[in-house]
């Protein structure tokens, strides 16, 4: 498991955790992000019940997790949020931000409505100890209710499954180093899991409106500097919803 600081300036920081070597072979590798501001924490896509103890133990080395006041779920998938009941058992006052359309589904994990702050389809703002983070709609990419997060201070854009890559076991880098080489790990995932080219173009336009230094997906490697625009251009040309053509 690798934990690295992506950004740190005075009272504000971003940390990423990924490449869990301990995970069972059949479990997809996931990245988890922790934003700290003024001593308070926000966890982005904290992960599945399978790797809760690893995520909690690793982040505990760097941050007092009792100060995590909120969790953000980009969408409803088990690898994103099935650990939620365990976080809430430890902190019954935890706030959980999630796409509005998934509220009545995610509550099946055992979370109560009083913990949930639904985010409407058009997105919004998350306030972390006085610091504002932008929530950007990413619906249909891949989930029908899907959100990204942009932090104007660090210029980090958390993209959820967008930009995800199914990396081979021997790929241990946290960042994309050779973009052209990297596309082979991304192409099938995006064409198979993401259905809408219209939604894709809308999301790309939203990202381009912002000054993005890092684009951070929930699986695979992080895009930094010029690789952010390289990814957007590659994604723009990709025909989504085209990996399965067995329609008769």
């Amino acid at each position, binding site marked *: 498991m690798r934990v690295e600081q992506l950004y740190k300036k005075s009272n504000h920081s971003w940390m990423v955790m990924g490449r869990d070597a301990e995970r069972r072979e059949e479990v997809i590798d996931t990245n988890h992000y922790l934003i700290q501001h003024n001593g308070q924490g926000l966890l982005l896509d904290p992960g599945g019940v399978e790797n809760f103890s690893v995520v909690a133990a690793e982040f505990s080395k760097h941050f007092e997790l009792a100060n995590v006041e909120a969790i953000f779920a980009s969408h409803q998938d088990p690898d994103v949020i099935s650990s939620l009941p365990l976080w809430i058992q430890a*902190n019954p006052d935890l706030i959980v931000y999630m796409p509005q359309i998934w509220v009545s589904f995610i509550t099946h994990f055992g979370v109560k409505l009083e913990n949930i702050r639904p985010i409407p389809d058009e997105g919004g703002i998350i306030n972390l100890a006085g610091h504002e983070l932008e929530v950007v709609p990413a619906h249909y990419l891949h989930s029908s209710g899907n959100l990204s997060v942009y932090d104007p201070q660090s210029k980090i854009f958390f993209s959820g499954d967008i930009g995800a890559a199914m990396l081979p076991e021997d790929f241990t880098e946290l960042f994309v180093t050779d973009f052209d080489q990297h596309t082979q790990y991304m192409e099938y995932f995006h064409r198979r899991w993401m259905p809408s080219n219209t939604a894709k173009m809308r999301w790309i336009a939203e990202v381009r409106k912002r000054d993005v230094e890092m684009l951070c997906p929930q699986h695979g490697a992080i895009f930094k500097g010029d690789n952010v625009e390289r990814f957007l251009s590659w994604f723009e040309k990709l025909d989504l919803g085209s990996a399965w053509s067995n329609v008769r």
Partner: protein
Amino acid sequence: MGGNLYTRRMGDDYNTIFRQCVSLNTELHKLVPLAKQMHLLSSNAVSSAARAGTEGNAFRVLTQDIQLLGDEVSECIGDTQKVIGEIVKLASQLVKQFSHYMIYMDLADRLEDKKITSSTKFFDRGHHLVADELRSNNHKLSSNLGMLANLLSPIAILVKKGEYLAVCSSVEAASAGEHGVSFEAVSSMLRELVSQLRLQSARQRSLLRDLSDAIEKQQNNQRYLVYAR
């Protein structure tokens, strides 16, 4: 994760409980047509008693008792199904809670290995909460099992009552002169239904014993797994 082995073992225990509940429920369902047949028999007996005029007076009283027997059997089934449903619900909650308990255990081990003390107290809260829920649901499971045993125990008494009614109706049939033939037909049918009820009652007692053993085994295993670590 070490917890997986324990969770799997507990999962097996709960699977056994589910299977026992399904078997018991299936057997209990077999009592539904039996109770209906008792009602039908009671209606037939009422007609026979009416045809017999004053000679059928004593038999008329017996028909009411047959109907009552059918009602009591139905009542028993209705309540037991609710309790079985509750046992299944508790067992499934316990599987989830036990899995969470083992995950917190795993986390505590990791924090201890890495000598991280800062977050230990924070996660202890979740750990204790789950342990309390486990205790409370295990207590509820035992109490529901007791309730189920109490609800099923009258069936053995109903079998005795049915046997007594069958004897009484045979006696009435013998002393009812020309109407005795139809009374005897009712009595013979009642004997058959009571014999089926006796068989069902024996099967249910055996299944209840199995369920009780499975729950006891699960609770012992859980105690061992939780306290052995």
